């Protein structure tokens, strides 16, 4: 009973209704624009060449039973998670070290700052040469997408912890390790979460581009009707060369949804590990 009421309240929440309304309007305008030549005898610029939503949905429905489509999504997700995970595992400790040791910071930061402005995609040729497999090249480029943001946010977060917390903790008898574990780590957590969320967004942009440029990675290249094995980036590219414009849009929307879900999941995880920020 109460669950039903709660569901009803959530479903008819004004903010949610506005969001749903906006999506509906977007799809309707898209449909009208795409079909403008058939329906009104006037081809709306740009949008009339894009497949209409209903056509996209028909193609999408067909692809739902296609193992290659799922395989593409799975591969991209795997690359995103491995690159992102490596960025977290390396970036957070590196950022903390840079924040805590002035000497380490002095040694590492200049190099870091020169490498940072290089866009991950500029690394593609070098990565293909350096790494033994295509798969590793793509994972490396994905890693770069999240790495810098995570490091920078960790450094800033740890450095901006109020020094009074250290003084209070020391006065109350905390050891150096206690200060690290109970002050620095939780004090940096909000910034790490923020850096990770931004990084997750970049990672999806980067993985798709890397897949397109490097020809879809190691497994099977462009084999299969839907470009199975290449990831969503290659899926889109393959659809383009194969002339299926609907499939291009399916690939794009799939990335949008995957990015939305992974960012949302990350945000929930972030809120869960920083419960004290939820209360404000």
């Amino acid at each position: 009973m109460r669950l039903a009421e709660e569901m009803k309240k959530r479903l008819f929440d004004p903010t949610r209704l506005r969001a749903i309304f906006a999506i509906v309007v977007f799809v309707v305008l898209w449909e009208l624009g795409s079909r403008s030549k058939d329906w009104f005898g006037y081809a709306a610029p740009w949008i009339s060449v894009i497949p209409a939503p209903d056509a996209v949905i028909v193609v999408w429905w067909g692809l739902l039973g296609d193992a290659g489509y799922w395989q593409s999504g799975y591969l991209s997700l795997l690359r995103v998670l491995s690159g992102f995970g490596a960025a977290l595992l390396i970036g957070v400790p590196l950022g903390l070290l840079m924040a805590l040791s002035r000497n380490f910071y002095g040694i590492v930061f200049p190099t870091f700052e020169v490498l940072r402005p290089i866009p991950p995609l500029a690394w593609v040729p070098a990565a293909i040469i350096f790494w033994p497999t295509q798969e590793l090249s793509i994972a490396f480029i994905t890693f770069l997408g999240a790495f810098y943001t995570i490091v920078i946010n960790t450094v800033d977060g740890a450095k901006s912890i109020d020094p009074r917390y250290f003084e209070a903790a020391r006065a109350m008898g905390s050891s150096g390790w206690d200060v690290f574990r109970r002050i620095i780590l939780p004090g940096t957590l909000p910034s790490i979460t923020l850096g990770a969320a931004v990084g997750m967004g970049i990672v999806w942009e980067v993985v798709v581009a890397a897949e397109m440029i490097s020809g879809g990675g190691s497994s099977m290249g462009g084999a299969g009707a839907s470009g199975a094995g290449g990831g969503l980036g290659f899926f889109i590219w393959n659809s383009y060369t194969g002339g299926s414009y609907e499939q291009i849009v399916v690939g794009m929307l799939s990335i949008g949804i995957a990015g939305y879900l992974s960012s949302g999941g990350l945000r929930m995880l972030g809120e869960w590990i920083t419960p004290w920020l939820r209360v404000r």
Partner: protein
Amino acid sequence: MSATPLHKKVATRGHLKIQDAHKVYDPEGAAVLAVDNCSLEIQPGEICMIVGPSGCGKTTLLNAIAGFHSLTSGTIHLDGEMLCGPGKPKAEPGADRIVVFQNGALFPWKTNLENVAFGPIMQGTMSPQEAREKARAIMADAGLSGMENNYPGEISSGVRRRVEIVRALMNDPKVLLLDEPYRALDSLTKSVMHEALLEIYYRNQVTIFFITHDLEEAIFLGHRVVIMTTRPCKPKKILTVDIPHPRDYSVLTSPRFRELMDETMEAVHEEAVKAFAAGEREG
């Protein structure tokens, strides 16, 4: 007012002795004398109020006692033990001297209970279980029941300050160092805080070194009020507040309180004018 003291115990520790404290800040060669030849003795269990203009060097003195900063010369003893002095310019921070900061330093990522229980767990004097039980009890004593599982961000700044004082007391300190803890509070909340602090004090009899701007606050709370000169900082006038403890807010309207206010007002005003003229930022 009742003459029978509420004091549960008589303080035997927390004797703070500052001798010839001297502090020169030297940023880029411009030697700034912050504390000059400052001597002050505070008895066990005394509430000693330090009044002076902003930037006069009071906090420098507090930081030297707490062990956050060094002294250029001079000695500070706590119960006969030298905290800092010749050959040891900077005291070690320790749980016998706990600071309650101006803007508060409760850890935002810990619940109020975890904050209060923090000290004894760190020092290893209690198991986490014991510390939490003790924290619960001491919070209840201070009227903070029901807020144990809230985060500091969820409670008002007045209540936060109370939690912080309770957290300090959990360490069983000899001296409580308060640096304008009620500065940001409105006057109504302040008056509630003052009575709450006295109540906690009557129960614990800890020595209190209390920095403030607020003369009324100083006279209401203190056994003595030390008026500091503006930079360099040293005692200009020491006033003994002969209104007996325990006090409550009715004291504020008593003739004796007014007399004491008048007596100190002039000295404080003089220093404030000097500080203003010296270009010290007020506020």
